[in-house]
């Protein structure tokens, strides 16, 4: 394998995996052993090895979400050893490598837990609540015409940078998973401030924040108490400053929007 460390010794691990048949059935932790895991494998590749073993033994493989496996799609979402996306800072589960663990380790793997994220099966959860929040206002619906010339709309560099930082949110849901209150404030705040900072987003600025917050509450997410676990576990480093921006946006929209209902 290119780039692999020839001195890295394969590891044997004990996995404690949450298994649950479907939404309504009761789940529980099941122990598995995996052998000869290369430290160069990603965490998801290690789970692939487990699933191949299970298939060979005629057992049901462990369901887990994954797609791009390069940290940009936000699909993989595992609660590993009591931390969202595992012990590494600033990584998604797919970017977590087995070299961060040691031979003989026991690893507990659980799905995101939140009332608004029901478990589909095993480690796979339904995060369509996030989609519905985006549908409530996380877009720009004005007709923007053809592709504008570069710099036609002047945006200061620092504003563009801040908007970009907020836009890096991949919607993985680690903020909700880590939050004691299962609050989606960091996710919603990233989406709101990203658009509120840019001129294209100003047209629907007030209705956007009102509708997205209303949808967030309707989905049954908890209320933020500024604990900060969300930002600490966020794989792309969305900061708490966005929540402060969301609070400002929400208050000023409520005080000045034309929506009297």
């Amino acid at each position: 394998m290119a780039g692999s460390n020839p001195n890295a010794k394969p590891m044997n691990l004990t996995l404690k995996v949450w298994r649950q048949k479907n939404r309504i059935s009761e789940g529980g932790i099941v122990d598995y052993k995996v052998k000869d895991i290369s430290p160069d494998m990603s965490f998801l590749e290690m789970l692939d090895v487990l699933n191949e073993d299970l298939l060979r033994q005629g057992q049901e493989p462990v369901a887990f979400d994954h797609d791009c496996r390069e940290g940009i799609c936000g699909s993989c979402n595992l609660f590993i050893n009591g931390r969202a996306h595992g012990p590494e800072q600033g990584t998604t589960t797919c970017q977590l490598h087995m070299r961060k663990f040691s031979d003989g380790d026991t690893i507990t793997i659980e799905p995101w837990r939140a009332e608004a994220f029901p478990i589909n099966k095993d480690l796979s959860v339904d995060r369509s609540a996030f989609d519905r929040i985006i549908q409530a206002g996380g877009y720009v619906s004005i007709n923007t015409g053809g592709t504008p010339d570069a710099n036609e709309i002047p945006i200061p560099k620092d504003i563009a940078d801040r908007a970009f930082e907020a836009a890096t949110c991949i919607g993985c849901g680690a903020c909700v998973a880590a939050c004691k209150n299962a609050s989606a404030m960091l996710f919603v705040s990233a989406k709101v401030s990203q658009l509120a900072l840019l001129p294209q987003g100003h047209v629907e600025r007030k209705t956007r924040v009102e509708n997205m917050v209303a949808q967030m509450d309707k989905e049954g997410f908890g209320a933020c108490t500024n604990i900060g676990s969300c930002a600490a576990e966020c794989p792309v480093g969305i900061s708490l400053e966005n929540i402060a921006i969301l609070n400002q946006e929400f208050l000023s929209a409520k005080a000045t929007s034309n929506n009297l209902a």
Partner: protein
Amino acid sequence: MSWISKTLTSSIGRKIVMATTGLFLCSFLVVHLLINLQLLRHDGGASFNFWAEFMGTNPVIRFMEIVLMLGFAVHIYQGLALALKNKKARGAQGYVVNHSEQNSQWSSRNMALLGTLLLIFLIVHLMNFWIRSRFDAFGGLAEVKVPNLDHPVGDLYSVAAASFKIPWYVALYALAQIALGYHLWHGFRSGFQTLGLKHPKYTPAIYYTGYVFSVVIAVLFALVPIVMFFGDQYQPRPATGQTVEQSLTEEPAVLR
């Protein structure tokens, strides 16, 4: 009016209610502490009783007392209601393994617990001091003369001096201030964050001020009962209607 109620019942609106009431209660703590520190002056309670009389009779203060009670009621109700809502949002099945201590502070995660402890303390505290000083039916106060006033005032000092000779009572007060300190440790900075006041320019100052505020407030509040417990000069006086000067020259006796 429905947009107002919608705003105040949304998750962000409820946070804003918690933040504004919480920061208002912080300002009350400062006033309360300044008056408490009068207990430690070696004047037989003259200063403390003077200010206790002022707080009990000044019309502005009496009005603010109502605002304060509303602030407490809203903060307590909203805090408990939000804690229940948030517990429900977390779901029935918790994590088997959760190392939240690696991503957040203990005080931040336990505001509801700390708040409940403070509520219990508050009830005990009000039963002993506030109810007694406002309503004669709940004990009332002996009267004493203080130098700056021509009429006798309630001797709340003696209630404090007698109370803080009881070991378990002093321990309760001192321990409650630990809960208060941790509650403020998170609450002070959190209030500003909720109001949207977060910026690299002043947020470090808010954090620093909040940490200093919580420690100073808690330590000084705890110090008063501890000093009064160990200090022989802090004694309740018998209910005789003497002036402070008279009582200071005489042998103090335990109240009732």
